[in-house]
């Protein structure tokens, strides 16, 4: 029977068949999040104590514990994900990132003291701006590499194989054109970035694919820009939901395609309740907000179609967490949405 080889051991309750008249049935693989706010609060409060007592040094180990929990509670097609990073490597990565960024800050601050030439001021500011611009894509690529290389499912690691230079070119060109077009180019730029990140992501030996086109988002983006002020910015939730659906619906793995069921209304509800929880509890409800977000993200995403898991084999990759910690220094998330 064909199905047996196709879904290979994927449990029945998490994969089901969807059939429409005239076409062959194809399997649906679901994602789910099983974590609870209480369990995460346990981790959070113990992490808090240890972080305070160690003057912040424990925060790297705390990050690992939190991730181990979040990854372990995430399920795809009946099996849990695993996080394999260590606090030690994050600590070293942070140190290197701090030296890299601190070096840039120090260099551009000390340069004007070399002589009284006024142009030296301008040059050092340009160096800082240029250096900063070059570090952001490095941080994005680095944190993708690190995070994926430390993530496993069924014992097989994910990898990110995108290289820095082509991404830097894409990034700088996109920013330039976005500025030149007074922002209108932004969805194209954003989609190109997404394509780069998705298409260089592998599960074992198998790549992810992306066939979205930024042009498809242009009209909606322009409309959102126009309606920002009359809707007090709320229109952006509508745009974010659409963009997320568009991106996932154009992402595929092997012969299967992702499908997102995110809607603006439910997304707005998620944000509003999370904000209220955090503000009212003075931050203590952060674990519950995190669990709500994770559950929402995973429950609104499915993979539809046959996945041949038998041909996927382990392809290990080395990756250091420097970019990951650099991304943290800049307070950004590598792959939002």
């Amino acid at each position, binding site marked *: 029977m064909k199905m047996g080889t196709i879904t290979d051991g994927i449990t029945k309750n998490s994969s089901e068949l969807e059939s429409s008249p005239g076409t062959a049935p194809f399997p649906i693989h679901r994602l789910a999040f099983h974590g*609870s706010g209480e369990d995460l609060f346990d981790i959070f*409060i113990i992490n808090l104590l240890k972080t305070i007592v160690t003057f*912040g040094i424990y925060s790297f180990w705390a990050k690992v514990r939190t991730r181990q929990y979040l990854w*372990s509670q995430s399920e795809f097609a009946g099996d849990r994900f695993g996080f394999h990073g260590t606090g030690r490597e994050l600590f070293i990565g942070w140190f290197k990132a701090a030296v890299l960024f601190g070096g840039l800050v120090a260099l551009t601050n000390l340069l004007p003291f070399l002589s009284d030439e006024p142009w030296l001021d301008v040059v050092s500011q340009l160096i800082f701006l240029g250096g900063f611009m070059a570090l952001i894509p490095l941080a994005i690529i680095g944190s993708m590499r690190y995070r994926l290389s430390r993530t496993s499912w*069924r*014992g097989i690691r994910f990898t990110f194989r995108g290289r820095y230079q082509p991404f830097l070119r894409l990034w700088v060109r996109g920013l330039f054109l976005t500025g030149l077009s007074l922002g209108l180019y932004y969805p194209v730029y954003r989609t190109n970035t997404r394509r780069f990140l998705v298409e260089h992501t592998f599960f074992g030996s198998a790549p992810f694919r992306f066939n979205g086109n930024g042009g498809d988002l242009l009209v909606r983006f322009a409309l959102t820009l126009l309606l920002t002020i009359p809707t007090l910015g709320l229109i952006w939730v509508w745009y974010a939901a659409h963009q997320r659906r568009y991106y996932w619906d154009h992402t595929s793995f092997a012969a299967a395609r992702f499908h997102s069921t995110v809607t603006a209304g439910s997304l707005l509800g998620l944000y509003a309740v999370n904000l209220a929880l955090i503000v009212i509890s003075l*931050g203590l409800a952060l674990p519950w907000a995190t669990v709500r977000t994770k559950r929402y993200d995973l429950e609104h995403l499915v993979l539809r179609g046959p996945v041949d*898991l038998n041909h996927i084999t382990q392809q*290990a990759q080395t990756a250091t967490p420097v970019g990951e910690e650099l991304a943290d220094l800049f307070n950004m998330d590598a792959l939002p949405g």
Partner: protein
Amino acid sequence: MLTPSQTTLRTSWPGHYFDGRTTTRHQVTITLEPSGLELHLADGSRSWWPYHEVTQAQGAYGNEPVRLERGGPRAETAPEALVVDDPAFLLALQKIAREEARRFAGPLDRRSRLQVILLATLGSIAAITAIIVWGIPALAELAAPLVPTSWETAFGDAIAPQLAPAEGRCTNGRLRESVDKLVMRLAAARPASPYRFHVTVVDSPVFNAYAAPGGQIVIHRTLLKSTKTPEELAGVLAHEMQHILQRHATKALIRDLSMAAIVAAVFGDVSGIGAFAVQGARTLTTLHYNRQTEEEADREGFRLLQAARIDPAGMVRFFETLKKHTGEGAVPGYLSTHPETDERIAAMKALAAELAVQPDPLLPDVKWDEVKNLCR
């Protein structure tokens, strides 16, 4: 030899095995032995996992299958893994493996969990309190001497034009001369000080006096006019000079920075909440720290007056004037961050009782009632 408890324990468990090379899920039967796990795969092959080679990756929390891993000590090589859905497997493992299996832990029961949370919460509160009350001030005391005084002076000189704009300054020669003499007399009592003090009188209706780091002191004219004798003004100046000598502004900056660093570490990458928490912590602790700072400036200022052989009774009298102003609600700017005036007066009287100093007259040939009203 079997003990009664072992005879009732289940030693055979169904699970899944992943070899770390492919995604294939192998059905496996696991037999628990006192020194390791025996794996029986569906194809008939067997494998032996001694406990000391096995680590637990999942299963310490509710809703989590038990996941044991073996091999792959380096993060880049994937370990073999064993997944058992029934959490009771861990209990059986703990009983059979004894000593070696102490590190294989399942979810805590409700009671021990509450205890852990309670202890961690109390511990966090105690640690935060200790850091705010002792840790951060101690750090500021240790770090402040490492900041060169020239940085303070450069900073003070840079902000002086904003604090006292040139067009608002009282430039009268007689006034300046009297004030400068007063400052010199006080400064002479601390000859080793690295700072050069400079007092500016500003024509402002707000009752206030303050010091910028490095030596700049600003006195508002309204405050100056309210002093009845030069000794009273000397009291105010001694207090402000001590803010500079004790490097209070530098210490406050170090405290703010270390607080922000700790909050950032605790809240990690959630920057919005971090900023919110920093602001909250600042508001709460500023009051506490300011009180200590003001008390120190009072105490050391009083000693400075005594060292300069200026009658400290003037400082006490000035505070009594200040108290009257408080009653009228005329001095909010000066008082909002300062301790209760009554307490301050009492503290100074106690200091005066400790050490009696024979004062030398201050500005004997200056008509203070006239001079204090001069401005341009």
